[in-house]
């Protein structure tokens, strides 16, 4: 055992006055009473939990769709769901997993944990943050409601034109998709702005830029990427909606447009998107690893540099989704080289994980098992990724099951596994519950085995000529055995996810044991506060002296008056929610900022936008007008001084 002093102990008051202040702070940061209070809550913990819960439900829906598809493909000439349903299923599976599960789930983790990790009390713009959630929920429900009208989107999550133009897709299917996606993208951009501002201005005093946890770095990089990646898709979808609704010809070759414009806009978003989903998950994995190995992440600075490098390089790769569209070889070769380049920072990160574990002091909690599973799966996905970056090889396997396998190795390995591990690791701080290790390990084993059985054979299927997005195949092509194995694997993984969900639910039963403040011996300051985090996060301002404030023996909570700068944030003043804002690089205390609380206007604004979207969907000019007026009204009321 170490003889280091442990000064960063629980954030508890030592005087009767402190206890009373704590009580008052709790009141101040709590939600207002009643249902409207619950609706109008905009504290980052409420919003983060909502994101995580909603995204988890969407994951179960998307996963169920995947199992329906695998059932259809289990045997040749099957007619379990049929062509039309199958096309809707694969479109919605992709859209849900991309837009409604991974990104919002990771955003939920960022919104909940980044302020805690950085020592802030809330996001910098709490009401905008709440709006981000409502927009995500609204867009998601809008997208899913298409099933009720039998008009689920059926043109793939990539929505290539001209198949998505009015002439080939006259129903409402694509309008549901386009409008829903615009809404979700707005939510994404809003959340990203929050995270970037939070990262630069809301860090605890002393948390200089070099002491920021890797998790927070990854959150900032992914959010900055969203700011550059999502707007092109918003523009792209709006142009397509204009093509569909009022007959413009942005993507119509006959009208002087270009269908490839859509592919460029889409993949300019779509390629960074996969890294947007990977990078925060890497942050979760890094947080788990350093705690499970009881030491700092090895090569911390190169890892952060690699994350930033991936964020920048990922914008130079989009054409590797388009090798077969007839772009000349010299141009595509440049994208091969660029795609290879991104393997280097990825390799650095994987090696840093191994170096962190090197001396063999790993505690094999379920969370760490998921991190190990992530490395085993993700490295294989990375290797096939380098393969498909090669133009002639990609000409063969592009749009086959080889790509399906590669993409799931990267996304499930790189995002889903760290997310599941993140649940095990962060649940104490999230809800105060702890998941059972025994059940957790069974679920991990089933997920790991099921995943590999489901997706490894698909590499071979692709090389045997099985194209993507086919709802049936005939007998005698040599695909039967591998498809059956793949389906069996998907069922096993389905059971794994089911066990995981049961574990999650059991952890929240009334009689379940409650988590201590720091069950794992964590390194970052969120483990210094209660589990779950109290309404105000920290009563006393944390002062951070290293990247691992819980371990360094010097970081501490500042008592009022003991530091020259310390204003009395440990007691509510003027009845206003306050947070300390610090400078961007050195985290010197700069000023105290008042944060808004409870508001229903973000919700009302979302509803107004939804009215507008439904109007556009149904070509109802009246609804469009009402929606627009309501949007302006809600925005004005939201911003009006003194209106709550």
């Amino acid at each position, binding site marked *: 055992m170490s003889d280091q002093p442990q000064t960063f102990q629980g954030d508890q008051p030592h005087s009767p006055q402190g206890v009373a202040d704590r009580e008052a702070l709790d009141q101040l940061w709590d939600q207002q009473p009643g249902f409207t209070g619950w609706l109008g809550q905009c504290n980052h913990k409420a919003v983060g939990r909502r994101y995580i819960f909603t995204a988890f439900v969407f994951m179960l829906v998307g996963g169920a769709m995947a199992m329906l598809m695998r059932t259809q493909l289990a045997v040749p000439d099957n007619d379990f769901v049929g062509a039309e349903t199958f096309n809707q299923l694969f479109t919605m599976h992709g859209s849900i997993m991309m837009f409604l599960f991974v990104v919002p789930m990771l955003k939920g983790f960022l919104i909940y944990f980044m302020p805690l990790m950085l020592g802030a009390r809330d996001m910098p713009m709490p009401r905008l943050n709440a709006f981000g959630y409502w927009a995500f929920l609204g867009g998601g429900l809008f997208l899913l409601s298409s099933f009720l009208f039998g008009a689920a989107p059926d043109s793939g999550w990539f929505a290539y034109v001209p198949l998505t133009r009015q002439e080939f897709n006259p129903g409402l299917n694509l309008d549901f998709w386009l409008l829903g996606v615009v809404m979700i993208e707005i939510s994404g951009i809003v959340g990203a702005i929050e995270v970037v501002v939070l990262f630069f201005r809301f860090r605890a005093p002393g948390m200089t830029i070099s002491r920021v946890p890797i998790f927070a770095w990854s959150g900032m990089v992914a959010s900055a990427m969203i700011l550059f990646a999502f707007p092109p898709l918003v523009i792209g979808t709006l142009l397509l909606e204009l093509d569909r609704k009022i007959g413009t010809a942005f993507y119509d070759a006959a009208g002087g447009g270009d*269908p490839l414009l859509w592919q460029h806009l889409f993949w300019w978003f779509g390629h960074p998107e996969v890294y947007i989903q990977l990078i925060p998950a890497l942050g979760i994995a890094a947080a788990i690893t350093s705690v499970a190995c009881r030491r700092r992440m090895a090569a911390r600075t190169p890892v952060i540099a690699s994350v930033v490098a991936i964020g920048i390089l990922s914008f130079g790769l989009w054409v590797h989704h388009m090798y077969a569209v007839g772009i000349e070889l010299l141009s595509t070769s440049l994208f091969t*080289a660029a795609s290879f380049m991104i393997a280097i920072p990825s390799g650095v990160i994987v090696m840093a994980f191994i170096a962190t574990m090197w001396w063999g002091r790993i505690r094999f909690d379920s969370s760490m098992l998921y991190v190990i599973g992530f490395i085993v799966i993700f490295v294989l996905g990375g290797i096939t990724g380098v393969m498909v970056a090669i133009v002639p090889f990609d000409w063969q396997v592009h749009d086959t099951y080889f790509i399906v396998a590669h993409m799931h190795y990267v996304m499930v390995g790189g995002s889903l596994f760290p997310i599941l591990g993140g649940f095990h690791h962060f649940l104490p701080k999230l809800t105060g519950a702890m998941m059972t290790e025994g059940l957790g390990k069974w679920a991990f084993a089933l997920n790991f085995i099921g995943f590999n059985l489901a997706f490894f054979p698909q590499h071979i299927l692709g090389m045997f000529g099985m194209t993507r997005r086919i709802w049936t195949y005939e007998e005698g092509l040599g695909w039967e055995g591998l498809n059956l194995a793949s389906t069996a694997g998907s069922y096993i993984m389905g059971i794994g996810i089911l066990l995981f969900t049961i574990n999650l639910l059991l952890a929240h039963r009334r009689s379940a044991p409650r988590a201590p403040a720091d069950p794992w011996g964590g390194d970052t300051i969120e483990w210094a506060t209660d589990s779950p985090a109290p309404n105000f996060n920290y009563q006393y301002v944390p002062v951070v002296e290293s990247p691992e404030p819980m371990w360094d023996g010097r970081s501490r909570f500042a008592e009022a008056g003991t530091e020259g700068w310390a204003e009395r944030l440990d007691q509510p003043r003027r009845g206003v929610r306050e947070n300390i804002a610090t400078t961007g690089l050195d985290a010197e205390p700069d000023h105290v900022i008042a944060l808004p609380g409870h508001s229903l206007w973000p919700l009302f604004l979302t509803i107004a936008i939804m009215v507008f979207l439904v109007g556009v969907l149904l070509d109802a000019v009246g609804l469009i007008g009402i929606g627009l007026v309501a949007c302006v009204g809600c925005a004005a009321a939201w911003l009006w001084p003194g209106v709550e």
Partner: protein
Amino acid sequence: MNVEEAHVLPQRIRAGRRRGGSHAALLVSALLVAGCDPRDSMLDTVAPQAGDIAALWWFIFWLGLVVYVVVMALLAVPLWRSVRRRRAARAGGDGRPSPDDGARGPDDPAGPTPATAPRHQRRAGVLASPPAAIEDEPLAMAPDAERPDDDADRRVRSRLVWWGGIILPAIILFTLLVAANLTSRSVAHVPEDEDLVIDVIGHMFWWEAHYPDFDVVTANEIHVPTDTRIHLRLHTEDVIHSFWIPRVHGKIDMIPGQVNDMVFEVEEPGRYRGHCAEYCGIAHAQMVKFLVAQEPDEFEAWAQQQAAPAAEPETEQALEGQRMFFQYGCADCHTVTGHEAVGGVGPDLTHLATRESLAAGIAPNDREHLTELILDPWGLKAGNPMPPTQIPDEDLEPLLDYLEGLE
């Protein structure tokens, strides 16, 4: 391509294919155990283009396998150490490795294994201190963790991150880039004047082929001569499709507003299958085509025969069927050259009976499937743009006779 290269290339290709062939045999035999007999494998090649790509695949496959095994071995080291330590902890109760533990680390109370320490120090100047040390901050540990030796830890970090994460990957990737570009050049689509040109047009959900040199129009079964450079000009009537025959060459998309080139030559006669490879709507799964490679003289004969107008109906019944073809509106969409039917929307039926498959390669061309296609096109292929036709039996039989006589 200059003369010298042209001379050398086929040998290289053949060598590559032989190598590829033995690997393929290995893989195939392994998979036969699992009950697979792939019909359209991209590794079972019949063209130099696919052969080159298959050779490239085996190169990147073995390279990738080695990289994966090495990374997994590196990952196994700490996992194995941890498992041993935990086992030792259960046995001894103190969580430390037993004295006979071969994997004794530098953090061990007994000190690092003596033989390794000086060697590391000797090499430190060369290997362990690349441009800048990875990290010179003191190692932060959880208060209750055991501290590994800082120097040894720094060495491990440097080696793994610099060599495993940057230097070796950079060398491997550069090698790969050279191999990729060599293959790219050898399989690139560079049309030349003497190529046999075929226009292939994608439709929802079938393939139309025009042979401008022979005045031939056909559908879904594209005949080509062997050992001849073929230049496909790919375009589309409606949405994006993608032309792919795995055993011959990689895929190229068919995109509105542009013509994409595809150049290959087939070395072995045979029927080679391929799906549409870009999602194109409801019946995307059932949009199949065959590339039929024939010896040049056989191809010549085929083209002559296809260029001729349709055969005259030979029986009374078939003549009656020709009337039905017009009466039931078949001729509104389908062309039969020589019989005054100029539809131009659906596949050209002038020589329907010479094709082996129906409805874009998804059913054999026999009376039973022809009947189904006419009466219930969606039963055969959901999303088929062909409308169902109500035809009483006494009219259907002559129609079928007529269609089966279109040789």
